[in-house]
Structures are given as C-alpha cells and as structure tokens.
C-alpha cells in the first residue's frame, strides 16, 4: 500500500521533470523557457523529499509519538528552494536585458541577429 504511494510520488516527479524539459525545448518565448526551468526544479525537489519517506511516520519535531521521517532531505530541499528562486530571478533579469538590447524575446529571431 505505501509502496504504491511512493511509486505514484516518483511518477509525479518524473512527469513534472519531463513537462519542464519539453517546455524548455519547444517554446520560442524566453520567459516560457524560464517557466520550464521552474517546473524541472520542482520535480527534482519533490523527488528529493519523497526519498526520505517512512510509512506511518511523523514530521521530525521532537515530542514525537512514532518514528520520524528522514530530516536530511528536508533540510537540503530548503536550501535548494532558496537557491532555485535566486537563479530564476537572475535568469529573468538577464532576459530583461536581452529584451532591452534586441527588442524581442523570441529566440528564433535572436539567433539570426549578429551582435
């Protein structure tokens, strides 16, 4: 029963990752590429938290009645969420500068320009 839960969790994170990957490859607007990057990061972080799951466990706060889930993936996911937000902000700032320089955010048109 709980093995089925973990398998569905894995499947969700893999589907999120693949949707993000397809968005990065197939969209022409650079902002939609950044949205695909966000989806990929969300899928990987979800997978990281699911790995630490133990059946019938409680969150890792100390007055605990049962066995606790693994706190290590949760701690590293916190750090990774903040770093993900920061790198998305930097990517968006660079896209704004690209728009100011080229006048467009369509990647097919930008590839054709020289300098």
């Amino acid at each position, binding site marked *: 029963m709980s093995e089925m839960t973990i398998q569905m969790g894995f499947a969700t994170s893999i589907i999120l*990752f693949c949707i993000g990957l397809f968005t990065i490859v197939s969209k022409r607007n650079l902002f939609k590429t950044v949205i695909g990057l966000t989806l990929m990061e969300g899928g990987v972080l979800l997978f990281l938290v699911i790995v630490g799951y133990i059946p019938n466990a409680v969150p890792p706060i100390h007055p605990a009645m049962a066995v606790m889930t693994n706190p*290590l993936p949760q701690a590293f996911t916190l750090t990774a969420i903040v770093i993900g937000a920061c790198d998305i902000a930097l990517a968006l700032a660079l896209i704004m500068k690209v728009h100011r320089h080229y006048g467009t955010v369509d990647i097919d048109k930008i590839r054709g320009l020289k300098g």
Partner: protein
Amino acid sequence: MKSIFAPITLRNSVALVLVSFVGWWLWRGLLPFASPAEALSGAAAHYVNSAEIETGARNVVAAILYDYRAFDTLGEITVTFAVVTGIALLFSARTLKVSKEGLSSLAKRGMALMAPFILLYGASIVLLGHLTPGGGFQGGTVLATLAILLCIVYGTGKRGSQMNFKTKDVFESLGAMLFLGVGLVGLVLGTGFFSNLAIGYPQWTQGSIATGGHIPVLNVAVGIKVGVGLSSIFFSMAKVLEVGEDDEL
C-alpha cells in the same frame, strides 16, 4: 493546424519523442528504489536521536541546518548574496522615479491594518524556528512578501513607501556578518567553526525559546538576509519598469 500546447513542427515532434524516452528511462531506473525503508539509518538516525540533547533544539531540521551542517547554510547565503549583487549590478539605476501612485485609498487602509500582523507572523516563524516547523528561510520569505506588498499598494512616489536603499544594503551585510561572526566565535575559543553547545551557551528549560545555543541567532541572521535579499531583487526590477525607454541602463 493550431494545437493547444505547442505548434506541431518537426522540432517539437522529435523533442516529444526524446522527452518521453527520457521519462521512460527515468521510471525504469528509479523503480527498484521505490521500496520504503523501515527505520532511519546512518547519519539521519544519529541526528534524530541526539538533536535535543546535543543542540537543545526540538526542530530536527533546524538543528541540521544551523548546527550539524551550518557550513552548507553558509554556502547558501553566499549564493543568495552573489545573486542579489548581480541583479543590482544589472539594474543599477541611481534614482527612484516618482511615477506610481499606488492603489486606491481603500486598499491602502486595508494594508495599513494588515501589515503589523504579517510582520508579527513572519517574525514568529523566524524566532521560534528551533521549536516548531519554520526558521530563517521561511520567515524571511514572509518578510520579503510584506515589503513587496507595501511597495505595490503604496507606490514608489514621494508620499509612498519610502525605502532608503542605503539602509537596505547595511541590513543585508549585517545578516551575513552576523552569521559568520557566530561561526567564528567557536574558532576563536578553540572548539571549532560553528560549534554550538561545546562553547557553553546557557540553556533554560527544554522546549522554551531560550534553548538551542546559537540556533535562534543564526535563524535571525538568515531571516534578515533572505528577507532583505528577496525584496531588493524585487525593487531592482521595479525600478527598471519605471525608468522608461529613453534612459540608459
């Protein structure tokens, strides 16, 4: 033929085939690892069993982030600082233009009523981080949300939300230096970088706010840093949107 998700071109069809192959490959590779463990093992078992005794904090995630693995948290706030510096460098406009009035006076009244409660909520998440779920990162994000809300509701004009940018730079550096200073106390006294209870911080009753050694102080430092950093990313971008088409950046 117009499709909903993406135009049907050769590149998109090839991409769809390759991405589904990647998805199938990941599923086949990860399926043997989908059996749940029965108990914790390794470092996690040690952290869960001895977090309250060795660090004095009840939130095991906070004990890992600020005591056992505080060095990784130092790397993370360095990354945040570098990103905020890069964005401020990209959008280095020197003056804040007076061009936005903000929302209606009804919205301003409502925001004035709610702002102290949001501030209290964010501060309580930061300060009680070693006892309940939460901590510096989560509370700092709530505080940054408050700053962004004030900027949107009151506008950036002369009568709007007056933000002094020198104060913001001082606070961001203050957060980083507080974090490093607490780590260096252990180095100076000879017990190790970021050592917590080995220095001899006093502990009061278990479960009260004055436990955990230097974990509350690190929570406050990270809360200041994340709050100021995320809101200054927003202010750098908001300045750009008002500067206009004819200004040099």
